[in-house]
């Protein structure tokens, strides 16, 4: 597909180019024309904002120890996932039996599974991303009117542990320190709606003027660059624009949000991979994130509890979750790997705690959980064999009524990209088909769409 400065391709063809996996140079004005400019008004009576998030945990759960399928689409959470049971009926769909169709490509362990689920494409190269991850499309759709287009968080202490990739392979690194995250959201750029009459800040406007001046630097650099470099530069200027918007919003009166309040200052420091530290970091980051959502500082987030091939460990032991998933012997009486199962349980306990925090934020006639959709994904189904067949995923939340919940949705061997397509459509991303080769699909999962 060609894209020159003067022709204006249709939205469909540009999106196809984008989603088809090739790096394409997209001029900034095209970008603006493509997407609706909605969601910027915060007048009283405006509809409650819709939010989207991804939650990632590594190493799945022991097959057979996640849910018990009941009649029809009914199910319940058991064993390792039991902590989620209180949320199931009203909020959670469980997707089973969806496959990562490889089309003969080699499956890279702890990689292919989540890349395929998030990008709709099976990776053949193991460097760079074959396509942007789906959360960035949702962020383009939902995140235009908020101070932060999206927020990426990792409980592992490593900023590289973020699975959000934008255009031109741009990696959205994760926040890892609760204190620094707090300072970023609720520090000097935050306008507390409860803090009385609002005064626009001259300095914010001046910072904006700096960024406007930066954009005038474009032309000189672009003269001799190839397509890939132009795309990278576009991404850079997109990022400049993001910060400009962030400042614009900071400079405006803050939205009045029912449950917005300043959180307590968290402790400093990023964790090591000792499980107590990971869990404490997860909960601390989640707490601030929940309030960031309540204060409408962002509407899209990506929270990672443990990375693919989770390297989390218990203090004083020599084996990480990952090593245990391979080397721990099966308990002959119980029929599963006890320590591995314990780590899996901790993953879901963390998710349950996050959901509890979201459920405590009142909004209108419900809570945050009613106004968002979380897509929880992992890298493998049976971690011992690195299987990418039937990788489980979950949606959590009612998305303002757009999504039905409480169902065990059976994939029957179909492509896992159907989950991603469905989620994007539920969020209003104008995409009718998604994915490449055997993961290409135009069939959303109608059963969960309201």
């Amino acid at each position, binding site marked *: 597909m060609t894209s020159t400065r003067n022709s204006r391709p249709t939205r469909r063809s540009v999106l196809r180019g984008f989603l088809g996996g090739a790096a394409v140079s997209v001029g900034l004005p095209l970008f603006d024309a493509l997407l609706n400019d909605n969601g910027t008004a915060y007048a009283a009576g405006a509809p409650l904002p819709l939010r989207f998030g991804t939650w990632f945990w590594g190493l799945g759960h022991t097959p057979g120890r996640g849910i018990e399928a009941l009649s029809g689409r009914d199910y319940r959470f058991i064993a390792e996932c039991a902590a989620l049971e209180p949320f199931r009926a009203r909020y959670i769909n469980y997707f089973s039996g969806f496959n990562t169709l490889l089309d003969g490509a080699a499956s890279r362990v702890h990689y292919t599974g989540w890349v395929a689920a998030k990008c709709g494409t099976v990776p053949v190269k193991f460097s760079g991303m074959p396509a942007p991850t789906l959360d960035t499309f949702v962020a383009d759709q939902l995140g235009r009117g908020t101070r932060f287009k999206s927020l990426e968080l990792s409980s592992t202490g490593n900023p590289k542990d973020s699975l959000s990739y934008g255009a031109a392979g741009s990696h959205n690194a994760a926040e890892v320190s609760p204190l620094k995250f707090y300072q970023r959201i609720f520090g000097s750029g935050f306008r507390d709606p409860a803090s009385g009459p609002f005064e626009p800040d001259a300095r914010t406007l*001046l910072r904006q003027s700096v960024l406007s001046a930066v954009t005038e630097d474009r032309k000189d*650099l672009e003269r001799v660059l190839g397509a890939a470099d132009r795309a990278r530069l576009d991404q*850079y200027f*997109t990022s400049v624009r993001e910060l400009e918007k962030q400042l614009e919003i900071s400079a405006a009166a803050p939205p009045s949000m029912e449950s917005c309040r300043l959180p307590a200052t968290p402790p400093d420091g990023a964790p090591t991979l000792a499980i107590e530290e990971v869990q404490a970091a997860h909960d601390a980051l989640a707490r601030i994130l929940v309030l960031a959502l309540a204060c409408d500082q962002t509407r899209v987030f990506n929270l990672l509890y443990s990375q693919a091939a989770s390297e989390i460990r218990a*203090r004083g032991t*020599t084996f*990480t979750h990952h090593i245990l998933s391979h080397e721990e012997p099966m308990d002959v009486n119980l029929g599963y790997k006890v320590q591995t199962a314990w780590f899996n349980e901790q993953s879901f306990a963390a998710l349950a705690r996050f959901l509890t925090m979201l459920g405590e934020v009142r909004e209108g006639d419900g809570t945050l959980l009613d106004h968002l959709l979380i897509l929880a994904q992992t890298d493998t189904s049976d971690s011992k*064999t690195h299987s990418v067949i039937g990788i489980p995923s979950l949606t959590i939340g009612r998305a303002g009524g757009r999504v039905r919940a409480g169902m065990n949705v059976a994939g029957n061997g179909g492509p896992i990209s159907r989950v991603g397509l469905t989620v994007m459509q539920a969020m209003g991303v104008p995409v009718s088909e998604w994915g490449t080769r055997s993961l290409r699909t135009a069939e959303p999962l109608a059963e969960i769409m309201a």
Partner: protein
Amino acid sequence: MPASTARRLAMLVAAAAFCIAACAPKEPQVRGNRPQLRLLTEDQYRNIIQDVFGPQIAIGGALDPILREEDLVAVSAGRATVSASGFEKFATLGEGIARQVVDPANRDLLIPCRPRRADARDDACAAETLGRVGKLLYRRPLSGAELQRAVETAGAGAARVGDFFEGLTYGLSLLLVSPHFLFIADSLRDEVSPPALTGYAKAARLSFFLWNTTPDEALIDAATRGELDDRSGLEREAERLLKSPRLVNGVRALFSDMLQFEKFVGLSKDTEIYPAFDPQVAQDAREQLLRTITWHLLDQDEDYRRLFDTRVTFMSSALGRIYRVPVEDTVGWSRYEFPAGDMRAGIQTLAGFVALHSHPGRSSPTIRGRAVRELLLCQKVPDPPANTDFSKFNEPAATNLPARDRLKVHSTDATCAGCHRLTDPIGFALENFDGAGQPRTRDQGAAIDASGALDGTEFTDVRGLSGALSEHPSIPACLVQRVTSYALAGTGESFDMPWANYLAEVFRRDGYRLRPLLASIVGSPNFYAVELPVVQTAAAEESHR
């Protein structure tokens, strides 16, 4: 001497000269890389701020890391882009730096002029300051328009807030987030064919390669005067940079990239199993490797292969606790030589290698063996296949065996052995160093058997590995490959193997010393070669569809 003899002698001499000229390797010409657009790495960013503004300027916070996609981060920098949160960090850091520059404690040193009035704009002083700073940050003089934009931003700011110096911070912020600063661009000379880099682009290549920082004012000015457009000017500057003590920064950056030192960030060990290993140890282990490398290769100008059997290193008090040796200087660093016959010989036996390539709670022969293969020998080890059968690990007693026994199935099972035979025999030799790099003679109660093999050479202990590594032909070849790739910020596609082979021969001829290798690279026109990418027309693309 009879005439015939003289004639024969002369012919002999001529023949010899001809032979020498013909037989000595001739440097092949590289096709040239496409013009690069490289994002600054965090180290480069910090070095530049320090060089331009001085070490008293604190850089609060970290930048987003450049993900390593190929063998070198230097190459990935040519593909990296700036995400929204990444740019936010550049903006925040830039503002912090700008505020410190105008701070009364620093402004006398850093701002060359004074405004007529401190509470109003002063475009002349702003222009002088921003022009000087801009030249150093953009690595070339600012264009009229660029300077005007910066001055206007500063002036409008000063007027708005009624403070010249605060206004100046907005001008400085502009420079510090500009793509001209954050991206190192290979600019081309106008109207020149075949395409050639501008003097400024050459200066940047040279400076970032040898010093890992922005070109200094002398180098930029040489480019302005056109001196870098011809060979002798370029050679003169290259020699100046090579002779400078600042060469150590470039060499440190090179080996940090080659040996994947970004893994030290967040390197942590289990505090119960290895209580002696704390963040200070991790930091010092990295520093120890770098000091060892630069001492041997720069200070002592030694054969590169000596790095793999040397007993000389540097100790800090934190490392003394890990190595269990007394240190001479309990506050700083002191040179330390392991006694003859000691297990420690070569950088592959130092904590920065064995502890970095281990699990948090135990050692790993496989990971260490793989690291030796990939980082030191440039040999790719395939990824584990997705359909690995782990049922062989189902015995409960397996977890309490020494590593060699626990990993036996790696070498006996057919699907595992193919790759593990490449890695495990190397790693077993390093088992005398536990997961934190501490010395040990027993593992799980059994005496450690450190015998192994490397590509046909067998050995009974870790000293044998040191000997085998230092003699392995891939050791020097791998360094040449990496250094060249790092210098050009390109990989095999755009980077010519014949040049690497030539340089490898030069390397051998010069006794495997690093300085002559660096000099050969920066003294070669290949280092500055560029080629424009072939631009496809729309019609050609259509026909490809």
